[in-house]
């Protein structure tokens, strides 16, 4: 993991002081709410329905046990004893008091963490996939690049008041698990076949929200040394020309769409030529300095015969292994995924302080004191020896952290929705709970297999409903809460936006609608065809017909 040195520490410490002063000036009235707003947003503080919320950055989703312990303490001391993990690998505390935020930030600073730029119209926390550095299908570890980007974008003075927020994601494995193509800038890292050089394919203009767009290719084969200068050029062009008259048209995706990606690329290229070989050109020395924090662990060859035995004998264990572990570079190790969605009682992404402590402890005992947060709002123990897996599983079960449902329908991505968020059209947590309740039969879930279900409480699409195999969107109809359903979306390199199946539904109907959709899928599925492929092949009609012919599903007109 990246370790702060003097400079990194100094920056976060000064930032805490700066923000406490700003909070004090807000309290005294010296700062108006309007003047204070962007300052608090750039320190992660939102005003929600009932209280302030603090979003803490977890850079590229990586946490140490110590850091997770601190988050647990914060949940206990400043919130109601739990935290909410987000799709961008951050954590949110929903019930904080503004006056106490500086204290929270100072506790975070003590363990090399911060909330800088987790909100606001600036470059946000850089994300990558949860299995970075350990996944079997990885081409190159994305974390050094992600850390270099974190540093470069932190309080970069020219780009703190952009037209709108700006999100960057990095992926460098065969499969894209970082939703790269729905980001303002998406980076695919790869090794040049001939030169073995690290290169970057830059994607631009992805984003969901009101106008969902899958990003387009902006620059192919960019040598990594030029990454900062190239992104600087992109941001400069965006800052210059991005729209500021309408917040819904202010994201870079709209600029790219308006100019056309070629014209946009041309302007970026012109800008880039001016700074390409300047001081921002990254050096091997700096890359090495950062990447030495992310060295591959020396893992041992193990006797895994006991593991094989347990796997053969214990059906429940085997099931959990098949859903909740991810293939590791080293055959005798796996990455373990811990679900934050054990059932209807637990809002997706939420975890109690005690559970956090357990996970932190388990990471210490069984791993290398490291934890990851996934885009799907789950936690990962990245390097677990197979011969310890059974023991770990038994312990996880004790703590109710062994729900064997990763990647299945109930592993939903859900935004906080109307229970917390003031922008919401509808609640999403109760809908998620109702679905959990309906689909409590593990065997049926496994029959359906891998399926993503995403629930957003409004058009802002924080839960990425557009790219869920099944997407649910809260809509407002004359003051009451309705839900629109899309199918056929998917994430990854071939990301795709789902299509609306028809008129929206009341909350009560949603579990049944999903039930019907899965039945139609199972009826038509060929071999192990994925849900989105079946939709692609047979179209919407078979799904629509079944869903809307049912009388007990109350569709509005």
């Amino acid at each position, binding site marked *: 993991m990246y370790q702060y040195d003097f400079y990194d520490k100094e920056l976060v410490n000064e930032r805490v002081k700066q923000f406490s002063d700003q909070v004090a000036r807000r309290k005294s009235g010296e700062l108006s709410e309007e003047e204070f707003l962007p300052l608090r947003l750039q320190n992660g503080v939102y005003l929600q329905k009932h209280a302030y919320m603090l979003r803490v950055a977890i850079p590229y989703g990586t946490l140490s046990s110590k850091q997770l312990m601190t988050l647990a303490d914060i949940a206990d001391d400043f919130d109601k004893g739990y935290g909410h993990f987000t799709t961008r690998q951050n954590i949110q505390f929903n019930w904080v008091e503004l006056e106490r935020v500086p204290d929270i930030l100072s506790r975070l600073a003590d363990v090399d963490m911060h909330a800088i730029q987790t909100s606001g119209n600036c470059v946000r926390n850089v994300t990558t996939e949860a299995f970075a550095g350990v996944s079997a299908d990885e081409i190159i570890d994305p974390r050094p690049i992600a850390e270099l980007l974190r540093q*470069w974008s932190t309080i970069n003075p020219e780009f703190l008041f952009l037209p709108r927020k700006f999100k960057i994601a990095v992926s460098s494995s065969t499969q894209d698990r970082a939703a790269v193509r729905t980001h303002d800038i998406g980076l695919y890292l790869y090794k040049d076949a001939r030169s073995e050089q690290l290169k970057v394919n830059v994607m631009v203009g992805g984003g969901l929200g009101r106008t969902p767009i899958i990003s387009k290719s902006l620059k192919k084969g960019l040598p990594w040394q030029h990454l900062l200068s190239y992104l600087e050029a992109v941001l400069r062009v965006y800052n210059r020309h991005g729209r500021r008259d309408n917040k819904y048209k202010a994201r870079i995706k709209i600029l790219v769409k308006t100019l056309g990606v070629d014209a946009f690329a041309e302007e970026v290229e012109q800008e880039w030529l001016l700074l390409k070989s300047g001081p921002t050109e990254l050096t091997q020395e*700096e890359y090495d300095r950062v990447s030495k924090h992310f060295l591959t662990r020396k893992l041992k060859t193990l006797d895994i015969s006991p593991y094989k035995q347990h796997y053969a004998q214990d059906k429940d264990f085997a099931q959990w292994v098949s859903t909740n572990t991810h293939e590791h570079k080293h055959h005798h190790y796996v990455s373990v995924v811990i679900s934050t969605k054990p059932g209807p009682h637990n809002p997706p992404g939420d975890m109690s302080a005690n559970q956090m402590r357990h996970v932190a402890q388990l990471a210490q005992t069984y791993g290398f004191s490291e934890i990851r947060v996934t885009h799907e709002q789950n936690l990962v123990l990245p390097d677990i020896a197979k011969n310890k897996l059974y023991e770990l599983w038994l312990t996880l079960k004790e703590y109710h952290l062994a729900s064997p449902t990763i990647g299945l329908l109930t592993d939903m991505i859900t935004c906080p929705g109307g229970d917390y968020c003031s922008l919401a059209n509808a609640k999403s947590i109760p809908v998620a709970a109702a679905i959990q309740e309906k689909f409590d039969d593990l065997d049926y879930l496994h029959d359906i297999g891998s399926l993503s279900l995403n629930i957003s409480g409004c058009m802002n699409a924080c839960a990425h409903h557009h790219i869920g195999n099944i997407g649910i969107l809260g809509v407002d109809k004359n003051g009451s809460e309705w839900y629109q359903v899309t199918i056929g979306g998917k994430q990854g390199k071939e990301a795709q936006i789902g299509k609306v199946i028809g008129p929206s539904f009341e909350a009560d109907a949603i579990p049944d609608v999903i039930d019907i959709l899965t039945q139609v899928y199972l009826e038509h599925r060929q071999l192990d065809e994925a849900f989105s492929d079946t939709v692609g092949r047979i179209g919407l009609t078979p799904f629509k017909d079944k869903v809307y012919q049912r009388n007990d599903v109350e569709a509005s007109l």
Partner: protein
Amino acid sequence: MNNVISVVNRQQAQLVEDKWQILDVFSEHHKPQDVNSLDQLVIPFEPWLAAYNSGLLQAYFEDIQAFSIDNSSDVNELKPWLNQLKLIVLDFPKFTDGRAYTQAVELRRYLGWQGELRANGDVLRDQLSHMLRCGFDSFAIREDKDPNEALKGLSGISVLYANSVLEPQPLFRRRAL
């Protein structure tokens, strides 16, 4: 202009008596009444350029020494006059509109502007350090704010990773290992 903070030699900041006045309405025909000469007058660039291009510009206005420019304009257009200018004023219509940061960087870094660069408009304490780093060296603090308080905003956070106009080397090239 009132409430002006000026930074000399990139470090000494002080409140100054400022001689400049922004000409609110530019008309190519009329010499403004209340101002003696162009060495006190900031001329809005866009209407000036339009008059210049159409040949209507009164001779009096050819020796301008200071321009203000909209944040939606291309600062490259200033190029032909940079040699005769003493001051360029960039505009923050709202402090959340950050276009002038980029304009400042372009002027300093690419157009080699060495003269005074002033932030005007919704210029507030908590953004001053960012402006300074992007190359501004004078700040017309919003009229209702206490400029002495605002002065405190100039120092900002001492560590910055990226390079800036003020510090052209990014931290990774300066970092003591």
